[in-house]
């Protein structure tokens, strides 16, 4: 792949069959692939949601209360319900795919993929417990 391709007279026509926009609807693994890709949109939405929360907290207790009321509106709840589904889906698929992307060798032997995925899930549990403890603990 160097630079732009050049076109000139009598160049043979490229054989490039046009793919349908909906090529991924045909088979289950393709649909799952696209759903994983789409999860990133909800990850981005949740970043915005977190930043709105941070901004509300920085503006005082009243603004925090307003944010909580807003977050209980049906439209926002619905969006967050869908987001929760996609974010959990992203989390599970990402952590279980990691050993396929990352082959770890230890003393010349491959660390079993299940062990890496297991360590990832352990990290997820630790992170979740930490978040819950920070927000809910010590009452």
């Amino acid at each position, binding site marked *: 792949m160097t630079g732009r391709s050049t076109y000139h007279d009598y160049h043979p026509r490229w054989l490039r069959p046009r793919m349908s926009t909906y090529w991924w609807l045909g088979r289950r693994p393709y649909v799952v692939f696209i759903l994983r*890709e789409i999860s990133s949109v909800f*990850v*981005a939405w949740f*970043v915005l949601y977190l930043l709105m929360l941070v901004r509300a907290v920085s503006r005082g207790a009243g603004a925090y209360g307003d944010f909580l009321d807003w977050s209980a509106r049906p439209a926002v*709840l619905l969006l967050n319900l869908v987001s*929760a589904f996609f974010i959990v889906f992203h989390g599970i698929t990402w952590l279980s795919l990691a050993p396929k992307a990352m082959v770890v060798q230890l003393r010349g032997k491959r660390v079993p993929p299940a062990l890496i995925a297991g360590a990832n899930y352990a990290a997820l549990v630790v992170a979740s417990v930490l*978040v819950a403890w920070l927000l*809910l603990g010590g009452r």
Partner: protein
Amino acid sequence: MAKRQIEPLLWLLFSAGGVLSALLMPSLVLLFGLAFPLHWLHEPAYARLLGVLRHPLTRLALVALCTLSLFHWAHRFRYTLYDGLQIKHLNEIVNTLCYGGAIAGSLAAAYLLVRL
């Protein structure tokens, strides 16, 4: 050519954001997105939440989470449009909007969490 040299960095940001969002977001979205609004659990009191958010480690973790997750989105969404929906003729605009959005969001996150 500059684009080719930056590509490995973009993949690195994509995967770092993938890991951070996979670890931290499920609990956060279940709590702030569902459990608190639906009153399954008591939301944290204002003073407590402010204290947690103002801790330097929380600020650092949240800036990292927001920044890397946004670059994760930018990179993945760009390829979703390219491969999934076959939108190839708008490449330049899509790239500018995705990475530009990620940069803008990261700056907003840093601003909000430093000023807090």
